């Protein structure tokens, strides 16, 4: 198993984590203006020859790599090289950042005001900052924060400014440039803008990758980007995108730098600014286009309480040590380095791709591990398991039980010491009163709705919004329970207690859900071992020779875990059912999501479906990807559109296997 080296099996509870400091505290006690004009002298990379943003651009335009591509493009298109050069310069102009200290100081001032209004505290692990500072001197550093909110990169730069660290240059989506003025402000605070898709554009890719690599090689500034590619609307970590990671690792592979350090940063919000926006988006209300006026309208959020946030800088991960024994760097010895004429741009080898993929998963898992879990997350998790509401006392009891379980499974819980559980729970409920309300002794989800009568569809939609909003909190703790939950589900599906049967069921589920959750490819055995270890530890199962058996006392844990994944299981089954029952021969990519949604709505209204998460477009897409991966659905590209060809028998079999109606091996393997 290739990825074994990257993950050592260990008890997650034993991980030691740093303490946090609230950086807003000082801001509340001293002048923001003085802070904005403080003396800023970051420690720089020791190999750095300082240069201006403009010099950087000309270095990129004159780089041999880019000139080579320019010549190639010119030869292919018949345009003169000068025209192509101008084109490249224009791309770079559109892309490049113009980091200025002035703008940073402006942001330092305004963000101080904003953060103080929004958050009770912004907690940072200072030891992580010290490690980062050390790393920044030694090697080019790549900052890899999790992405849950627009706040993420503002917050990152703000924190680095606060601690007198080099400000990062940040890869941002081009959509920000749509916002007049703000886009340019972001550019001047270090953002550089890339198109969301530029698959075939060789020149664009060359300019972009050379720009990033030049900054990295020169140690110009730390490079920051989001491995997840986009904000996670569900607050679940997204499967990592590899493009930029490939680019930043290449200078190491090719020996242009001694090492590159990757620093995972986990940013956890007690309340995400965009929470209900996300839920609506998932239900098909399109994302509002980024605009300055939209931003100004959002001012009202300043008057709300978003609780506290935690930022955890994990220890730097050295690409060199990860690559030890995995990457044969001499594979690049036999081709010219800067692409001589006639030299075809190399695709990374399979070995390299697999490695980059493993590293990406490793980083996302590190982000997850150090994500702070708030009490509300546990409350939301429990509430979702009884959507109709529950007794407050029961909730208190269960929350306290779940807290202990989460701790045992290694969750990074932010649970106040010496405070009774009831206090903790009620204070988090009050912070999230837009999602949950207490009436009498019962607590239930808040469902917003118009004052007057509403259609059944509207009612369903409103209910779904609050369920999905709540789910976005539950999702923040999924990584803690994921592996044991898959095992719990495998135990109930397997109809056997033989370890190998359970494993194959586990492996199947893991495979199906590998777009939904962060499950490193090829690490199935380790995940299984980890899940067994945890369930044995909490007394839910016993391992007997060749058998995995549910323990007497394990019923509560196992049923909780099974219920945790139930929405996903049901969701996938509904998608399967849709494909089986309603999908036509010419199902296009565009039709898919609306069609599944209306199918699910129909089921809901007929009363045969209770699960709301099926309505989430995220789940629908993931399910489709899983089916494509399982070769049950084929993606066919025709002239204008993408069609999906469904193997109905196979879909049926997947659906049945998910429901535990047929054992794993026979179904999938035999019938495909």
């Amino acid at each position, binding site marked *: 198993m290739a990825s074994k080296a990257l993950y050592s099996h260990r008890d997650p509870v034993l991980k030691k984590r740093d303490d946090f400091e609230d950086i807003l505290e000082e801001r509340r006690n001293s002048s923001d203006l003085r802070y904005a004009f403080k003396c800023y002298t970051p420690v720089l990379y020791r190999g750095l020859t300082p240069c201006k943003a403009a010099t950087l651009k000309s270095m990129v335009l004159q780089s041999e790599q880019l000139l080579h591509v320019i010549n190639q493009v010119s030869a292919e298109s018949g345009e003169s090289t000068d025209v192509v050069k101008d084109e490249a310069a224009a791309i770079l102009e559109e892309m490049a950042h113009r980091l200025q200290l002035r703008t940073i100081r402006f942001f330092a001032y305004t963000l101080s005001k904003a953060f103080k209004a929004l958050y009770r505290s912004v907690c940072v692990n200072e030891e992580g900052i010290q490690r980062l500072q050390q790393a920044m001197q030694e090697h080019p550093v790549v900052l890899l924060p999790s992405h849950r909110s627009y706040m993420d990169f503002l917050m990152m730069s703000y924190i680095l400014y606060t601690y007198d660290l080099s400000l990062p240059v940040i890869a941002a989506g081009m959509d920000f440039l749509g916002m007049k003025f703000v886009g340019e402000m972001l550019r001047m605070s270090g953002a550089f803008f890339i198109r969301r898709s530029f698959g075939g554009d060789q020149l664009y890719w060359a300019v972009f990758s050379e720009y990033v690599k030049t900054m990295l090689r020169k140690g110009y500034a730390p490079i920051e980007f989001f491995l997840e590619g986009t904000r996670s609307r569900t607050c679940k970590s997204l499967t990592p995108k590899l493009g930029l990671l490939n680019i930043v690792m290449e200078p190491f592979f*090719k*020996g*242009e730098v*001694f090492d590159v350090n990757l620093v995972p940063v986990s940013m956890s919000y007690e309340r995400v600014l965009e929470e209900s926006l996300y839920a609506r988006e998932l239900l098909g209300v399109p994302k509002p286009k980024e605009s300055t006026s939209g931003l100004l309208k959002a001012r009202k959020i300043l008057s709300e309480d978003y609780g506290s946030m935690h930022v955890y800088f994990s220890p730097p991960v050295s690409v060199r040590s990860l690559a030890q024994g995995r990457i044969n760097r*001499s594979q690049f010895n036999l081709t010219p*380095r*800067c692409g001589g004429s006639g030299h075809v741009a190399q695709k990374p080898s399979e070995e390299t791709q697999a490695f980059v993929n493993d590293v990406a998963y490793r980083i996302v898992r590190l982000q997850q591990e150090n994500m702070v879990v708030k009490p509300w997350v546990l409350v939301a998790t429990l509430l979702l398991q009884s959507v109709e509401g529950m007794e407050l006392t029961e909730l208190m009891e269960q929350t306290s039980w779940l807290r202990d379980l989460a701790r045992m499974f290694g969750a990074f819980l932010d649970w106040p010491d010496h405070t009774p559980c009831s206090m903790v729970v009620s204070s988090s409920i009050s912070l999230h009163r837009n999602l949950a309300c207490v009436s009498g002794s019962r607590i239930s989800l808040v469902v917003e709705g118009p004052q007057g009568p509403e259609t059944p569809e509207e009612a369903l939609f409103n209910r779904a919004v609050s369920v999905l909003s709540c789910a976005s909190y539950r999702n923040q703790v999924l990584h803690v329970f994921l592996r044991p939950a898959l095992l719990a589900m495998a135990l109930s599906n397997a109809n056997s207690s033989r370890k190998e049967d359970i494993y194959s069921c586990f492996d199947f589920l893991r495979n199906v859900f590998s777009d939904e959750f962060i499950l490193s490819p090829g690490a199935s055995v380790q995940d299984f071992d980890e899940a067994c270890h945890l369930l044995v530890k909490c007394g839910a199962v016993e391992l007997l020779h060749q058998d995995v058996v549910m323990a007497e006392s394990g019923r509560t844990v196992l049923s909780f875990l099974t219920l945790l994944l139930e929405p996903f299981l049901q969701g996938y089954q509904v998608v399967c059912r849709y494909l089986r029952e309603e999908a036509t021969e010419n199902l296009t990519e565009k039709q898919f999501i609306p069609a599944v949604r209306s199918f699910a709505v129909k089921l809901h209204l007929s009363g045969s479906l209770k699960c709301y998460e099926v309505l989430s477009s995220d789940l629908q897409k993931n399910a489709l990807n899983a089916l494509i991966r399982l070769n049950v659905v084929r993606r066919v590209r025709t002239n204008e559109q993408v069609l999906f060809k469904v193997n109905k028998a196979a879909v049926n079999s997947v659906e049945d296997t998910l429901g535990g109606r047929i054992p794993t091996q026979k179904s999938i393997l035999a019938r495909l």
Partner: protein
Amino acid sequence: MASIGDGSERQRIAQQRLRVLAGHLRRLGAEERPGVAAQECRAGPRTRRENVPAAPQDIMKWNGWGYADSKFFFNKKGQGEFTGKRYRLSGLILPSLKDWFEGTFGANLQHKSPAVPSLNTSAVAPPSLNEAFVEELKSTGIPFSHDTEDRVFRAHGHCLHEIFSLRDGRVGRCPDMVVWPNCHNDVVKIVELACKHSVCLIPYGGGTSVSSALECPPEETRSIVSLDTSQMNRILWIDEKNLTAHVEAGIIGQDLERLLNESGYCTGHEPDSMEFSSLGGWVATRASGMKKNIYGNIEDLVVHIKMVTPRGVIEKSCQGPRMSTGPDIHHFILGSEGTLGVVTEVTLKIRPIPEYQKYGSVVFPNFQQGVACLREVAKQRCAPASIRLMDNEQFQFGHALKPQVSSIFTSFLDGLKKFYITKFKGFDPHHLCVATLLFEGDREKVLQHEKLVYDIAAKFGGLAAGEDNGQRGYMLTFVIAYLRDLGMEYYVIGESFETSVPWDRWVLDLCRNVKERIVRECKEKGVQFPPLSTCRVTQTYDAGACVYFYFAFNYRGLSDPVHVYEQVEHAAREEILANGGSLSHHHGVGKLRKEWMQETISSVGLGMLKSVKDYLDPNNIFGNRNLL
């Protein structure tokens, strides 16, 4: 800032330099090396022991580099000094050596790690002789010995671990006897006898190997005979029409050059080890000379080779300057590292002694600019006889070897120069680096050439920095090996290693990454003080360059310093290979770098070499186990 003054003055200086250089070589002449002076097929009467040639260990160190009378030491005042009379540095005081030494390594003159004073012969295992072989050898009249000192002297090269053990008084497996053939026919007889009696032969030339090539394989059960070629040291003929010389392969580099000079010729082949290494050794390791830009490397110089193998004698039938007769059989011999047979005679190209020689140097603001300049020089194919680029650490190291200045005026001038370069030109003394140059040829052309090179250098921010700096740079190569012995007196061990690498950015990146890797590995392995990790570009080619690394560290507090050293060197070699460097440019593979051979030349390539070995030497008579 090159030489100033009118033409005649310049010429005078140049001639003086030539004399100095020639003198430097001549001083190591015949009167001090009686063994080398033998001119007849049978050596003359022996003074020391009967029937055995004079032992090099009489004038050379038994546990260190070079001549016994030449060594660095710190005098009572703590100043560095170099003893003897053989080198320009000999007898001079080096006032800045101590500070550099202590500052660079964190060493302290109070902490000494002296060597055992003399070889304890009882520590050496008695020879295991093959009696039948000895009996028959006696009847041939070829001199031999199984004296312990003779055996120990030929049991090692100059790798760090070899010298370190000797200083500790530890000796591993030694050859069981030494034979001194006097001519090609003697070698034929010895090889025949070795085959007949199943004896293992290890050819020995100058003993300057740094690849563990001379180490006797400990697993060897047969009697091991060291075949010392030192008595085969005559120039057999010089052909002035074709400009070739036919020479016995045991001749030592400096003797070859001196003898040819007497007839007005030279080979121009000057590896850094030329004081001690032999012609046969050069052929067997694919040696490279400092002035290869004019004269070529050994493979370019060789016209004809005669080698004795267990299968018979291999040689070509004519001396055509180039042939299309299948793969060149010379290339099986070049670099065979003593695994196939003994090179006995070689025909070499020779050249008339150049009329004029001039050193030079250029200071660059940083290593990057320096490499760019060397690349441009190579591109324009106008490299001088030698062009080398030292990095900053080595530049400072060179300064540590500056002798005491004789007058206040020179010291003032030096100060002025330093001021000009660092303050006026804004070079950072911690980044600047220096290229040393050696021009050779007729005077006019040298001067033109010099101008061309300095003009190119100027484009890369280079400033001419005088002949003296250049000359000192070259001197450094001869004395640096002596410095290692000094270090070993004070807990400092070190070694050099080399590679060749394509131009593009590999040269720079490789240098940086390897140096960095060394520093990191040392730290990881518990070395207390940052090591000296420095490099220089010593040869340029159309498609790349040769890079030389020096690496040394203070080993106080380490229980097994040699092991640490070997681990770091191993890591450094891995780093070189990962960065596109070769396994070796001219040191060879020996046993030290064998493990990477397959990766380097592919398993098919290795199979080809093995099949040649199997054909020539099926019973592994030449059993030094190098290379394969």
